[in-house]
């Protein structure tokens, strides 16, 4: 059994408050799951649509635990050379040449010493003296081979480098795995983790986020924006706007010096919210007017 990180957080309430201090507004269910992940020393598996704040959880956790965030972005074909370690070949070659000019030959052990080792995220996370937060981002983009490798790493947090030996984490890092569900991740991996589904936030929560993250936005505008985005998420769209889009849109409207929504400015800036041409065409014009009408009626 791995020793869980020594967490300064002793209760769910405390964690929720700490998250809030760092401007992350999690509902009680998510806070409970994160709290347990810290306490049981288990990886946290976060799923949800793009832009709901999955990656942000890892960043905020690193800040709460006052440690480094080590991020591994996944992609198809991700292998040991890019995830764990690689030898610095150029340096090795240079070293050999330099030695040769002095009429010497370097010993193999010297060439494969720590100074020629390039540490990739997984190795760095394992070597980190104070347990780091290891973010394995968008694991659905990787392939089965990497998933299998990850299973191995997550079970014992040790890495064997043939030339050096086995490196084992003294205390396991806090692991956050995220997925956008572009592919079903294997159950074996998910089973080892605490699972949380992050949904789009409610109106109140999203307004809270907008007001705290874009403090320049006038309160009335923030209300309108949030209500508009919430309405938009009810529409039949391919890609619904996430919180990230709401924040970008708010920033855009503030930059344009607006203090209220109207049809023309929404039409002009719709590209910040919607990222598919079909979606923009569908909403543009009448639909915008209808939603604006509903937003004003609700306000």
């Amino acid at each position: 059994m791995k020793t869980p990180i020594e967490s300064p957080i002793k209760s769910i309430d405390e964690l929720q408050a700490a998250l809030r201090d760092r401007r992350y507004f999690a509902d009680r269910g998510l806070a409970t799951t994160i709290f347990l992940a810290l306490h049981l020393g288990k990886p946290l598996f976060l799923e949800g649509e793009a832009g709901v704040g999955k990656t942000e959880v890892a960043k905020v956790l690193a800040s709460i635990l006052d440690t480094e965030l080590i991020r591994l972005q996944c992609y198809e074909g991700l292998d040991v050379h890019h995830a764990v370690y690689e030898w610095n070949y150029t340096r090795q070659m240079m070293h050999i040449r330099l030695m040769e000019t002095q009429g010497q030959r370097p010993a193999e052990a010297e060439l494969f010493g720590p100074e020629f080792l390039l540490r990739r995220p997984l190795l760095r996370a394992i070597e980190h003296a104070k347990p780091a937060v290891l973010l394995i981002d968008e694991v659905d983009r990787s392939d089965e081979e990497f998933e299998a490798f990850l299973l191995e790493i997550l079970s014992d947090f040790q890495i064997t480098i043939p030339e050096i030996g086995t490196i084992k984490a003294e205390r396991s890092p806090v692991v956050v795995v995220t997925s956008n569900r572009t592919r079903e991740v294997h159950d074996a991996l998910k089973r080892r983790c605490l699972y949380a589904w992050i949904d789009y936030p409610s109106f109140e929560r999203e307004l809270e986020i907008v007001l705290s993250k874009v403090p320049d936005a006038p309160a009335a505008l923030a209300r309108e924006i949030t209500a508009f985005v919430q309405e938009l998420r009810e529409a039949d769209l391919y890609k619904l706007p996430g919180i990230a889009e709401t924040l970008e849109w708010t920033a855009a409207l503030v930059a344009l010096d607006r203090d209220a929504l109207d049809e023309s400015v929404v039409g002009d800036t719709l590209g910040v919210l919607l990222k598919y041409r079909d979606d923009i065409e569908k909403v543009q014009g009448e639909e915008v007017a209808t939603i604006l009408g509903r937003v004003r009626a609700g306000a």
Partner: protein
Amino acid sequence: MSGALLHNLVLFGRVLRRLGMDVHPGRLADLVAALEVVSIGNRSDFQAAARGLLVHRHEDMARFDEAFEAFFTRRDPLARPSARVSGELQRKKGAPLTLFASPNASDSVGAGSSDESATADVLTYSEQEVLRRKDFAEMTPAELQAVKALMSEIAWRIRQRKTRRLRPGRGRLFDLRRTVRRNLRYGGEVLDWARREQKWKPRPIVIIADVSGSMERYSRLLLLFACGLAKALEQKVEAFVFSTRLTRITRQLRQRNVERALQEVSLAVPDWSGGTRIGDALHAFNFQWGRRVLGQGALVLVVSDGWDRGDVGLLSAEIARLHRSSHRLVWLNPLLGAPDYEPLTRGIQAALPFIDDFLPVHNLDSLAALAEHLAGLDERGRVRGANRSRWTDSSRPRI
């Protein structure tokens, strides 16, 4: 830790498993550990903790919450369990319906396989030949049974996809790590280059089949075909059926026993032999599933006769989107078997420009031809040789 609580948790785990959830015993033990830091008195915290540990698929969440309500809300987790819960669950599963007339009424689940092979064996060669050309819709139950066995003889070979994963080989990419190791003995002089090549993997297959009223006579066989394909191929086969709405049947088809799989499918699909709304079904597919199952260059097989009672504009927009996100889009139409068939229905007309292959599936021969056609596609999804279809331009338009 109270013994009754432990007992209740184990029982709850069993309940979840019976509802089809994948509950790991280790997570139940973790839940017990979690209850040292999460108060069991706070019902919603307890529920969130249990959910985080026991559920790991989003689609199971609602079922979990329902089961949790049923199991714990009306009673104290520390109290002894009653027999009522298991009774409730029994009822939820319901009595299995039989939608398809079984070829012989007394044929029970499991007895099928030995029967089939026997039937196929007693057929003479010429009988088999006739069977291969006979339209599925005109077959007698006995013939259908025989076809089932013959169907499994079709060899499916589908060209693999080149992935971005590299492995040692004879490709054009250098493998620095192995090169350096191998050449150390020459004192840093590189004489022997190690190379890597891209790995090949099977392409995922997605089947979207029409089970509406007009397809009724073919539905059973086409499901058998989907089931057979899922078994014969090593890759992932995702299957969906629709008439007025779309249902995913991938999990049901994973059953080892074919008859059992079909029975489970019939239970899962709410709208057998209803009207057809291809556009809506494809919309639902693109919307909910497209991004999840088309990721790795999937080959998509749509099976439908194209009799659409829905919105044609929607159909054409959705099929265009499906075409853009799939490796190759094949439309299989049982009506195409008739020699005088012309694709004139509005649905087919709207879809044709976006279909890579438009092929018949009305008899065994047409399935064999489909297998041959798929085997003939090259890695980019182009047709090699001359087996082009009559209705579509086989060179895939690039948008």
